[in-house]
């Protein structure tokens, strides 16, 4: 009945780990106050009518499973289909580049075998975008390609993004790192379920490779075509790109490309009241999440759920995550403050715009 099932991979480590990714996979990194990165591929799938989604789990799966839970918030707590938690292989954690590790997919082959949908949409979880997968699948069907890869013309150099060489509409090579104007892979593709199962068999001897590494010498044999996406897409690979792409969203016209009426970004629901601004607060050019209480000054920043900014406190050009308290007179500038931190009164936490300071998770106090 359904046209496609979904497969999301999360079982790989970041090349440049930071305090933010010490205890969590990139997929469960908080983003824009109330989201986690996995919300984007998951919502894209659900918005395209995909009702069976497998998530390949990382070794440290706690934060991820805490977040996706029963799948209820994505309407994926279903009697048939729904969200499938797929154990990742231990091997995945040691690979940094491989977003579609063959061994991880092979290990969960039964998930693919059990279904009857013709296509599989596969996505990693560190590229933020709101894409109509219907259009991707339509293009795949229309072209008759073996694999259709979601791509974008690179708007600058990025060594962490996969580049496809394209000749006459077909992919003829793959390598790491893009420059301006290159065909950048958005770590998402569609393939027929049967072909994916066949590929797993053919490549079983090299299952320690990423699917596209394995395909490297087979682009003559397999018709791989790019599908160019024009909207906003942000790859999150390190603290620098995390910060930059969070701040992107202080531009409402970029917000409009991520958050649109017909394709909502779904996430875990919480019962936070609206944000409360007390007399004397001063807030500008900022995104403020539900449950915040603000008496101080906030500018050019993103505040997570339930952040308290006391009177006389200042937050500038920073990301402050869920449940932090910025005490009276404290100053946070050019910083990323992970959850549950209390910044004591009259203290300062300052990085520079070039070298943003990162403060790791605080202790749970509630």
């Amino acid at each position: 009945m359904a046209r496609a099932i979904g497969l999301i991979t999360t079982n790989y480590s970041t090349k440049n780990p930071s305090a933010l990714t010490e205890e969590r996979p990139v997929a469960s990194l908080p983003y824009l106050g109330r989201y986690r990165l996995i919300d984007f591929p998951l919502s894209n799938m659900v918005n395209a009518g995909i009702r069976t989604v497998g998530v390949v789990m990382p070794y440290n799966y706690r934060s991820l499973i805490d977040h996706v839970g029963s799948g209820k918030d994505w309407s994926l707590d279903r009697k048939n289909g729904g969200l499938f938690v797929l154990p990742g292989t231990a091997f995945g954690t040691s690979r940094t580049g491989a977003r579609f590790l063959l061994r991880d997919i092979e290990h969960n082959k039964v998930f693919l075998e059990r279904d009857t949908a013709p296509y599989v949409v596969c996505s990693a979880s560190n590229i933020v975008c709101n894409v109509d997968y219907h259009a991707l699948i339509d293009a795949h069907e229309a072209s008759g390609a073996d694999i259709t890869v979601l791509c974008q013309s690179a708007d600058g150099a990025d060594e962490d993004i996969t580049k496809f060489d394209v000749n006459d509409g077909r992919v003829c090579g793959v390598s790491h790192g893009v420059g301006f104007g290159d065909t950048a892979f958005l770590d998402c593709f569609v393939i027929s379920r049967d072909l994916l199962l066949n590929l797993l068999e053919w490549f079983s001897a090299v299952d320690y490779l990423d699917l596209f590494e394995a395909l490297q010498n087979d682009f003559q044999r397999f018709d791989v075509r790019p599908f160019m996406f024009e909207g906003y897409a942000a790859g999150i690979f390190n603290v620098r790109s995390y910060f930059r792409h969070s701040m992107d969203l202080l531009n409402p016209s970029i917000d409009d490309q991520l958050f649109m009426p017909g394709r909502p970004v779904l996430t875990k629901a919480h019962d936070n009241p609206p944000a409360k601004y007390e007399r004397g607060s001063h807030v500008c050019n900022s995104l403020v999440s539900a449950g915040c209480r603000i008496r101080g000054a906030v500018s050019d920043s993103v505040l997570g759920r339930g952040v308290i900014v006391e009177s006389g406190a200042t937050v500038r050009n920073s990301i402050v995550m869920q449940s932090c308290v910025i005490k009276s007179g404290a100053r946070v500038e050019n910083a990323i403050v992970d959850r549950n931190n209390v910044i004591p009164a009259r203290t300062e936490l300052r990085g520079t715009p070039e070298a943003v300071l990162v403060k790791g998770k605080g202790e749970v106090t509630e």
Partner: protein
Amino acid sequence: MSKKECIAMLLAGGQGSRLGALTRGIAKPAVSFGGKYRIIDFALSNCSNSGIGTVGVLTQYKPYLLHSYIGTGEAWNLDERGGGVSILPPYATETGGSWYEGTADAVYQNIGYIELNDPEYVLILSGDQLYRMDYHKMLDSHIAHDADLTISVMPVAWEEASRFGIITKDEDDRVLKFTEKPTKPDSNLASMGIYIFKADLLLAALKEDAIDQQSEHDFGKDIIPKLLGDGKRLYTYEFNGFWRDVGTIASFHETSMSLLGEQPEFDLYSKDFPIMSNASTRPPHYVGPNGEVTDCLIANGSRVYGTVKHSILSIDSYVGERATVEDSVLLPGARVKDGAHVVRAILGENSVVEENVNLGSVDQTKDTAVIGDDVVVGKGEE
């Protein structure tokens, strides 16, 4: 509390006609409140927080939004197997159907639902009041008194007393007298319209009332006086917190404003007794470079480019550049465009105030301005 020790019957059928434009398309309990809530959230959250897992919601007037909003009850943790929220609209039997005629009649017509759940106690609630109450404590008091009926009461100002059902009690909290809207009240204890009955007594009283031709089938007017006259054990349970019936535009506006300020009477931020809601998934709100916000509640999805003071901006509100909003409530999706000025107003869901329009008046002797859902206010229509 064992699962079916006590069930709640929540009266949510009211049209709320005194809310005028706000209830043109929806029932009163479905009206948006406090930025991200709807009025019925408060009663449903109270049930959930009090451990009452089985709630029958009696609906009648334009119920689509209410039904879809309540859904499975999961938003309030009320989606238990064998319990949870049940919507109870009027229905037909072999002898035809009939509409709910009074509060007691509505419950009477759903005796089948009560019998199906077979509880020891039944809590009767109204879906259009704002307060936070642990019904379990009221139940404990009911059981301790071995009461037939316990009525939740609160002291009101003496000059207001003649607007309420007024109760005179003895020192053991037993009800001596109950008078609906007395001209000369001899007590200032007002009934809040929240009752706990012994289930079997309730069923008997409802059945008796149903065949009484003289009865208006109302708890306050008929059932309570009858039980009192019959010498049943009626007790009071005194409540001293914040409680409001937002039945009129004036009280809706005033109660909304009371959520603001440093120490509001009603604290939305209490973690022990959270108010839950079936909120839509919207991103954090954005305050623009020239935005100025003070003494406000702002919900997700909103965008503020102008100045907002002492106001509530519900989900997906919009305030344009150079626009000002003061002492007002923007319901979900309401838009105040560039250069418009809104003061002492309630803007209905998805309503629009066009550019440079002035709406409302600071003059307290004038009524609060109200714009209905989906209405567009252009220049010259202010």
